């Protein structure tokens, strides 16, 4: 116990570790904020960079970058409507409208505090229940992941505010985009039109940058002469009352985040969308309607995606299995540093666990400090004249999509999606469901095929499993309940009348 405490406090008491965690968090915020620069990329660069270092130094830096990076994605989502990372997509739904109302500062302030609360809840769950939670996560069979993906696709109902049929079309379109590339089972091309470049698929960040960044930039060209909203930069730090008011929602969505994050195969991107949907269903009287700048719509995804960080470490530290792409790279880093990440990690090198937990808490505290610093300056970005901002946004989109793979192919795709997105937006199709489809489509396809193959391609056998396995029953029931409560038929008819 005392040993654990000593390891926990190691990054707090050692000056160089403290500084590395701080530097990592600071850098992470800005890496995360730039679309196209991902935490995964930053961490894999850090591997070569920290090759010769002590493993604790390397981990402190990586943990900092991870925490900062997940939070940083919300910056550009709020200020420019370009999510810096897929896990910040849901943040843009209400964050950007807030910035348009002149509340960018408050939005960033609130998202910072909620991210830290979410992050800390994630670490708390990690520290207290990691072994139990990871055993629980192992119980999820391919069919259960399939059910989760179905559950996720039902979010279309809450993401497509205007017309359900358009939402469904958009989600299916997104899924088609997500499926482009090689079939995972037989390795044949799907929707590749014979192109070798497309065999590798379309990177979903490219889709995101194009649909959100470029399409938005084109839209704003309509408002060149409109004077930018003056930002109110008073009271950017949310009052205690406000924080307490949203605390129950933040705790609920953090738990969603940590569980979805702990499942190997789903991460912060899906968690934040689930959280947004949960907020929309459970909060009866939001501060403003959702999608128009509701604080609740900001609190939920921001708590969830940072809580998912703690969740992602659960399978990594207990089983040596990655909880998401970033922890996958970190496992590689541990291997290179001569450790054996696996189920024995907690037995042979227990200090790694407590060290990571300590560094995560520390990184969250730095997040609070760095996140609240400089908000006034950032809020001013929204006040820049559109004629300056729009060309800069385009350049940022180009650099971001280029740096994904160091190739121009992604840049052309990005512009293509931007133009397509502009047309779709004109005619009332929303971007949220498309991204949902891009993220969930491949997951659904993969897990469906796995579930089918596991039962020897027999549909009745699969259906029986869905209603006999306890976990599957719960998920199936959740889907049925959601379907019934949504009454999609009624909405579909109404939607087709005015949509």
């Amino acid at each position, binding site marked *: 116990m005392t040993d654990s405490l000593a390891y926990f406090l190691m990054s707090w008491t050692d000056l160089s570790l403290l500084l590395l965690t701080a530097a990592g968090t600071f850098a992470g915020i800005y890496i995360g904020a730039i679309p196209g620069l991902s935490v995964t990329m930053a961490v894999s660069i850090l591997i*070569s960079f920290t090759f010769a270092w002590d493993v604790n130094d390397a981990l402190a830096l990586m943990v900092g970058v991870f925490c900062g990076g997940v939070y940083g994605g919300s910056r550009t989502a709020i200020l420019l409507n370009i999510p810096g990372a897929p896990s910040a997509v849901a943040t843009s739904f209400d964050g950007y409208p807030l910035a348009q109302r002149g509340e960018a500062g408050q939005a960033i302030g609130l998202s910072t505090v909620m991210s830290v609360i979410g992050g800390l809840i994630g670490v708390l769950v990690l520290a207290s229940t990691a072994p139990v939670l990871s055993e629980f996560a192992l*119980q999820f069979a*391919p069919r259960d992941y399939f059910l989760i993906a179905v559950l996720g696709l039902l979010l279309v109902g809450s993401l497509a505010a205007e017309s359900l049929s358009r939402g469904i079309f958009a989600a299916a379109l997104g899924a088609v985009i997500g499926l482009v590339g090689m079939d995972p089972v037989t390795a*044949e091309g799907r929707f590749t039109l014979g192109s070798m470049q497309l065999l590798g698929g379309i990177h979903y960040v490219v889709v995101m940058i194009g649909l959100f960044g470029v399409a938005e930039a084109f839209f704003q060209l309509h408002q060149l002469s409109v004077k930018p909203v003056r930002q109110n930069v008073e009271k950017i730090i949310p009052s205690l009352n406000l924080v307490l008011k949203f605390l129950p929602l933040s705790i609920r969505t953090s738990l969603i985040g940590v569980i979805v994050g702990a499942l190997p195969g789903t991460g912060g991107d899906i968690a934040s969308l689930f959280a947004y949907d949960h907020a929309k269903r459970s909060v009866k009287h939001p501060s403003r309607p959702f999608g128009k700048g509701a604080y609740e719509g900001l609190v939920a995804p921001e708590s969830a995606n940072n809580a998912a960080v703690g969740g992602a470490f659960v399978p990594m530290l207990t089983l040596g299995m990655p909880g998401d792409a970033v922890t996958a790279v970190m496992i590689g880093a541990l291997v290179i540093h001569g450790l054996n990440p696996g*189920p024995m990690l907690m037995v042979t090198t227990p200090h790694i666990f407590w060290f990571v937990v300590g560094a995560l808490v520390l990184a969250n505290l730095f997040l609070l400090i760095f996140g609240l610093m400089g908000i006034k300056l950032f809020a001013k970005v929204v006040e820049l004249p559109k004629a300056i901002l729009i060309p800069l946004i385009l350049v940022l989109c180009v650099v971001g999509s280029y740096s994904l793979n160091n190739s121009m192919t992604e840049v052309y795709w990005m512009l293509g999606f931007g133009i397509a997105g502009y047309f779709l937006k004109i005619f009332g199709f929303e971007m949220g469901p498309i991204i949902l489809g891009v993220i969930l489509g491949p997951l659904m396809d993969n897990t469906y095929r796995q579930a089918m193959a*596991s039962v020897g391609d027999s549909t009745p056998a699969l259906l029986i499993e869905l209603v006999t396995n306890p976990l599957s029953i719960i998920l199936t029931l959740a889907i049925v309940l959601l379907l019934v409560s949504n009454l999609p038929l009624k909405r579909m008819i109404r939607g087709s009348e005015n949509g």
Partner: protein
Amino acid sequence: MLKQVFATLAISAGTLTALSPALADYPERNIEGIIQWGAGGATDNVARSLTPHVEEALGTSIVLTNRSGGTGVIGMNTVLTKPANGYTVLYGAENPQLYPIMGLADFTYADMTPVNVIGQGLVVIAAPTDKDWEDFGDLLEDAQANPGSLRMGGTGAGGLPNTVLAMINAVDELDVRNVTFGGDGPGITAMLGGHIDFMPLSLAAAQEHIASGRLKGLAVLTKEPIEQLPDVPPITQALPEIESYLPWGPFWAVAVRKETPDDIVTTLADAYEQGVANEQFQQFLTKNGGQSLNLRGEEAKQFLSHWQSVTAWALERAGSAKVSPEEVGIPKP
């Protein structure tokens, strides 16, 4: 940090002079290393642990980038479209040798000059500990008593589990449900949860789980027991006929474009030979279930074509090849 900044300044300076002939003082700027697989995987780990030692021998930086996708086709294609001046090297795995017969692409390592074949991975067939099987023979018996009901974890066409399955099917019969996962990791996770019954895995991925007692090794794909898992019998014990394919395993190689001038290839091959021989890297390889090969020149080419003909014809015999090896000119072993 400063070193990084200077190094990058050097790249930009180098780019300006890119038009001048890349002769004389190779390497005079940074080299771009393209990794065929994603960050955190076996190929990535090998590349990232090896590269610092090569940089030392070469006296320049090698900037590593992951270009994953399409079973590595994308990464290899990228290198093939860059100039053949030794400033772009490919860090690849075994997959390119099977592209033509999987119908993925028409190039293989034969279209490049191998700089170094770094090492070969060992393969173990693993199952959850609570299964009744003692060794691979029991599994085979069970599978033949209940054809088409055991669930094997796979990683898709051309992946390691499928190739192992094909080799077994080339000499015996193993009829199973093949459940495809995104890689070793997700497959092991599913196996730990009891959602699949067994999976052929690289030793690197499996050994920690076997050590912890959550998985057990049924057989290793060698003729003799191996040092890392002394209690696991070699597969030849249950299936002697498979011996002609052994030793078999995934490998890692570094290659450049075929048209690269000879003196540049020699410089690179010298540096990689030193890097692979480095003690620290050797320790890394052994610890992660790999056998060092450190082959260059003709030896490397021979290794590559032998591996290709053995594997391709095994796939063909098991009926898993999309295009016959004969059609694409792969000789019989």
